[in-house]
């Protein structure tokens, strides 16, 4: 049994940290001081992805269908593999078209001493003076925890331990405080991987989408240099390349106590072809992450059949939309 504990936090204050996500390292360090040594050794934490609490509908591929009410404020049931990624994509595809989805999904920015912080709430309403017409959208943080072996020895971590964590910069000033709103245990072995199994059976090619960066080089003592995995093929096919120019690499830093370590990564958000032949097994590994810094949240990815377009609008051929 491979158990992961999904946790949904709500932001209680502004956030001044890594703008793409709250790294697993930041979350791990926030949790680590509150747990015993054994848990600390075994605990693995994913990156925390920002999620707006807004009305939505389940995306294509999710086990549930249709309108979902306010989707970002609780954890949807996880039955199929695709359910794991409903919230783990910055574009938050489940937001409703009938509302200003981009405005809901972009952080309100605040300036503090020249630094740009994310507000924990954004306000809507026109005209601005009319109080009754104003409404707010709060920001949430989605991450998951598991133990080193993936067994159930560490999770679930008690909600009291997780509640009130602080992440990001300016924590002494109250920034980056989060409180737990929802948590659930998911058994990876019980998930339905039927779409990937079908792709494997029919020999259909798959693609890998990087949810979090993959570490290539690191100064951190636990990290050796790694190559891009052999089972990633950066597409060089002239007919249908996803992009041209190779993989995007990024330099970042890993903070561990007083030490700071330079880290070179393959940046998240990119798509590569899957060159292996065990997509289901690879997908399972991708949830628990791969690479030397997987314990800090790096190396998470999602596997999809290549024919499956995550932008469902694109498939809907036909007219319309002209104004």
């Amino acid at each position, binding site marked *: 049994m491979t158990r992961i504990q999904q946790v949904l936090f709500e932001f209680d204050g502004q956030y001044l940290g890594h703008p793409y996500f709250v790294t697993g390292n930041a979350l791990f360090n926030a949790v680590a001081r509150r747990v015993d040594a054994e848990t600390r050794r075994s605990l693995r934490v994913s990156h925390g992805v920002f999620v707006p609490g807004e009305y939505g509908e389940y995306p294509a591929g999710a086990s549930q269908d249709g309108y979902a009410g306010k989707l970002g404020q609780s954890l949807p049931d996880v039955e199929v593999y695709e359910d794991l990624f409903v919230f783990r994509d910055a*574009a938050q595809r489940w937001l409703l078209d009938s509302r200003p989805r981009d405005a809901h999904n972009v952080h309100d920015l605040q300036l503090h001493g*020249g*630094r740009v912080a994310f507000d924990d709430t954004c306000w809507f309403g026109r005209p601005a003076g009319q109080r009754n017409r104003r409404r707010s959208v709060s920001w949430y943080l989605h991450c998951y925890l598991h133990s080193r072996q993936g067994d159930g020895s560490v999770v679930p971590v008690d909600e009291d331990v997780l509640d009130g964590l602080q992440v990001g910069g300016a924590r002494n000033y109250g920034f980056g405080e989060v409180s737990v709103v929802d948590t659930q245990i998911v058994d990876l072995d019980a998930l339905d991987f039927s779409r990937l199994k079908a792709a494997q059976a029919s020999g259909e090619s798959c693609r890998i989408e990087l949810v979090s960066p993959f570490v290539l080089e690191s100064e951190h003592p636990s990290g050796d240099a790694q190559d891009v995995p052999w089972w990633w093929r950066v597409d060089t096919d002239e007919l249908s390349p996803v992009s*041209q120019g190779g993989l*995007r690499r990024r330099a970042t830093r890993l903070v561990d106590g007083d030490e700071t370590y330079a880290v070179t990564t393959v940046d998240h958000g990119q798509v590569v072809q899957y060159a292996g032949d065990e997509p289901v097994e690879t997908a399972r590994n991708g949830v628990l992450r791969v690479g030397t810094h997987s314990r800090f949240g790096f190396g998470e990815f999602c596997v999809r059949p290549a024919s499956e377009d995550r932008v469902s609008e694109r498939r809907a051929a036909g007219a319309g939309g002209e104004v």
Partner: protein
Amino acid sequence: MVAVYRHDVHKARMRGHEHAEETFRGVRVNESVPFGADRDAALLSRPRGEPEQTVDAHESWFRVSLLTGQVASSVEPVSDIGGSLFKVVRIKDPAALHAAWLHATVPSLFSESPYYPYTSLKYHTLLVAALLDNYRAGVSFDELFLAVTPSDGDPAVVPHRTVVSTSGFALHVTSEPGDRPAARLGSGPARLFADVWARLPEVPFDVDGERRWRVLDAQLRRVRSWSVALQFIEEYSAALAPSPLDGAGPGGDGV
């Protein structure tokens, strides 16, 4: 190519297509755009089907800023909207007209539709022009790329294909990315800006060195509508381009 920059002038005059006039101060406007370029560009920024109001109590052609939440009319009034509009409509040379639109303010005061007030008339028009110019060259949508001129490159403007130009960088929609880093738009027009942006092999500003550029990059991975995203790039670059105050060194987020 001239007509494409004039086809939606009625929106800046706060009229729908059906009530639009055929001329504006003696210049022909409101002509239809061939090859379905207008429809495809609309699909890049707005949903298919019947439009519905997405922002309560905002039924206006004035754009709402994604950066500040302010309505354009109240933050950057152009004293003479008609006159400024005429300046970017009357130009006869297509390349000059494109250049004028790239740097124009007045069309960015308006949205593509009162139903979708975060969209931008300016960037819708530039996208229509880019699509039309590519379609005319015999290229279909699935052969198009979003190409970037990197921050250390020459942000050369390519007539009709450059869709954003700031002092530091430029973005282009083209079938001929050349050596520039580029990502495919995909098989058909849809609101997929975030998807294309996230796949770019290089972003055109220094995300490793400047946290403010990282914030912009992070926001752009969230925005799906093209004209909203391109307008956001313009506004963010103008308002929050990195200052020395923010320089926390390489990778300065301290993860």
